[in-house]
C-alpha cells in the first residue's frame, strides 16, 4: 500500500468500520439528527441524550464509507460523557485537523488523529467531517433536521 493510502486506511479506522461503537438506535433520545452526504450516499442518524449540560448517551445508525463510519464511531466514543462545551471545542479541533487549517493540539485528539489521513484526499474530507457536523447541529438549540457537508 502506498504511504498516503496507509495513512487514510489506518488499522484503527478499519477496525472502527468493522465494529462501530455505539451503533444502535436510541428510541428515547433527546436529540436526533440526520447526517447525509448526497454526493456519495453516506447516511447516518445521530442520537443524543443530554443531562445537565452533558452528553450522557450518544449512538448512531446508518451506512456509509469506512471513513465516515469510523469517524462517527470514534466521535461517539470520544464525546460520551463530555460536556456540551467540551464537545463543541472538540468539534473545532477536529475540523481544524481534517481541513488542515491549523495544527491541532495532538495531546487533545489522541485516536482521532487517525482521521488526519483524509487531508491528502480532498474529496474524502467531507466523509470524515460528516458526523461532526451532525454533532454540532445536535448540540445547537434550534437544530435543523439534517446535517450535510454540502
Amino acid at each position, binding site marked *: 500500500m502506498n504511504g498516503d493510502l496507509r495513512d487514510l486506511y489506518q488499522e484503527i479506522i478499519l477496525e472502527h468500520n468493522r465494529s462501530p461503537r455505539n451503533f444502535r438506535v436510541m428510541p428515547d433520545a433527546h436529540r436526533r439528527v440526520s447526517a447525509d452526504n448526497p454526493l*456519495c450516499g453516506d447516511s447516518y442518524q445521530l442520537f443524543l441524550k443530554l443531562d445537565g449540560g452533558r452528553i450522557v448517551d450518544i449512538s448512531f445508525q446508518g451506512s456509509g464509507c469506512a471513513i465516515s463510519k469510523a469517524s462517527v464511531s470514534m466521535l461517539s466514543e470520544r464525546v460520551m460523557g463530555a460536556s456540551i462545551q467540551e464537545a463543541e471545542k472538540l468539534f473545532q479541533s477536529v475540523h481544524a485537523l481534517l481541513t488542515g487549517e491549523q495544527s491541532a493540539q495532538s495531546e487533545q485528539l489522541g485516536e482521532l488523529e487517525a482521521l488526519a489521513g483524509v487531508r491528502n484526499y480532498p474529496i474524502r474530507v467531507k466523509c470524515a467531517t460528516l458526523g461532526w457536523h451532525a454533532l454540532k447541529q445536535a448540540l445547537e438549540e434550534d437544530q435543523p433536521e439534517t446535517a450535510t457537508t454540502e
Partner: protein
Amino acid sequence: MNVVPQSAHPTHPTGYWNIERVRRDFPLLGRRLTDGNELAYLDNAATTQKPRAVIAAVEQYYRQENANVHRGVYRLAERATAAYEQARELVREYINAAEAHEIVFLRGTTEAINLVASSFAQRFNPGDEVVITTMEHHANIVPWQMLREQRGIVLRVWPISPSGELDLYRLEGLLNERTRLLALTHISNVLGTINPIGQIIQLAHRHEIPVLIDGAQAVPHLPVDVQALDCDFYCFSGHKLFGPTGIGVLYGKERWLESMPPYQTGGEMIRSVSFEQTTFAELPYKFEAGTPHIAGAIGLSAAIDYLNALDQEVAARYELELLGYARARLHEIPGLRLLGEAPHKAPVISFVIDDIHAHDLGTVLDERGIAIRVGHHCAMPLMTFYGVAAAARASLAFYNTTDEIDRLVEGLHYAREILT
C-alpha cells in the same frame, strides 16, 4: 493477493480491432498520472474522452472561424453559420431524422428533457399521466415530478425485474386514456440494460401515446434510427459521444415541435419583435434562444465524423467482447454482486462488494490510476430498488482494453485485502 492463472481467463478479444491505433487518437488515454500510474479510464458513462479530431476542430473554430451565427453579413459569420448548420445536418444524418430542423441544439440530455417537460407538457391537464421507469436517471424523473407539483399530473412508474429489465406485459396495465407521454431510457446508465424501445414505442403508439427516449447512454454504443424507431423525442449529449461538454441534442418529430411553445425566449429565436407582439422564428431556431454553443456543435460534428470513419459494427462487437470479459473476470471477486444481469447489455457494469463501501473502492482504485464511478449514479430510486446506498460502476468504450479490466480486477482484490 489472489492470482488467477492465465488459462482460467476468458478469451481475450481478438485482433480484428486495431486497439493501439484507436487509442493513439485519444491524447488523454495512456497518459501517466503524477504518481507514475497509467490512467485506466473506465468512467465512459459519465463522459468520454475526446479524439484529437474533436480537440482540433474546436481549436480551429476559435482560431480561424469564430463569429456569431445567423447574424453577420460578413464572410466570417457566414462560415461560422455554415459550420454550425453542417453540424446539424450531420447529426440529422447520424440518427436518421427526416429533417435537419427536427434537430435542436441544447446543452445536453438534461436540458432536452427539461425542454419537453416545460414546453410539450403545457398541453397537460391535472390528472393527465406520464409514465417513466424504475431505471431512469434523475434527469428523466425530476422534470416530471416538477410537473406533478406545478400542473397536478400523475407520475406512474413502470417497475423493472430483479435482472434489470422491463416487462412489456406490465406496460399495457400502466397506460390509459389519461396517459400523455411515456418517457424512458434507451440504455440504463447504471445497469447497462438495452431496452427494447422499438417494441415499446409500437405498443405506446397503439394507444396513441407519444414516447420520449433518453438516449444519452445509447448513442455511444448503438446505431440509432429515429425514423425506424418512430420515437417522438430522442435526447442525447455530445460529451458522452466523444464530443465536447455543453452541447446536446433534442430530436423531435416536426409536428410536435411545430405545435410546442418556445422554451426560452430572447435573441436568435424570433422573427420579429415589437412591444406589442413577437413572432417566433421557424424550427429549430424557435428553441435555440441566445447565442448557441457554436464550438460545441462543431466539436460534436467532428466527433460524428470520427465515428463515421471507424468501423462501428466492429467497434460494437469489440465492446461486447470487452463486456463479456469484464463480467467473467469480476465474478472471480469474492462477495461481488453485479447489479442488473440483462442478457442484452451495453458495456456498463455496476457492482457492490460485501462489507466494502463503493467510495472506499473508488479511492483505492484511484491510487492505481483506475478511474471508475462510485455513488448513486443519479439514479437513487434504482439504488433503492436494489437495496444499496451506493455502487461502483465500470463503463467501457471501444478504446478500453482487457489489460485495463485486468488492472480493475487486481485493484478490487487489493481493495478487499486492505479494507476487510
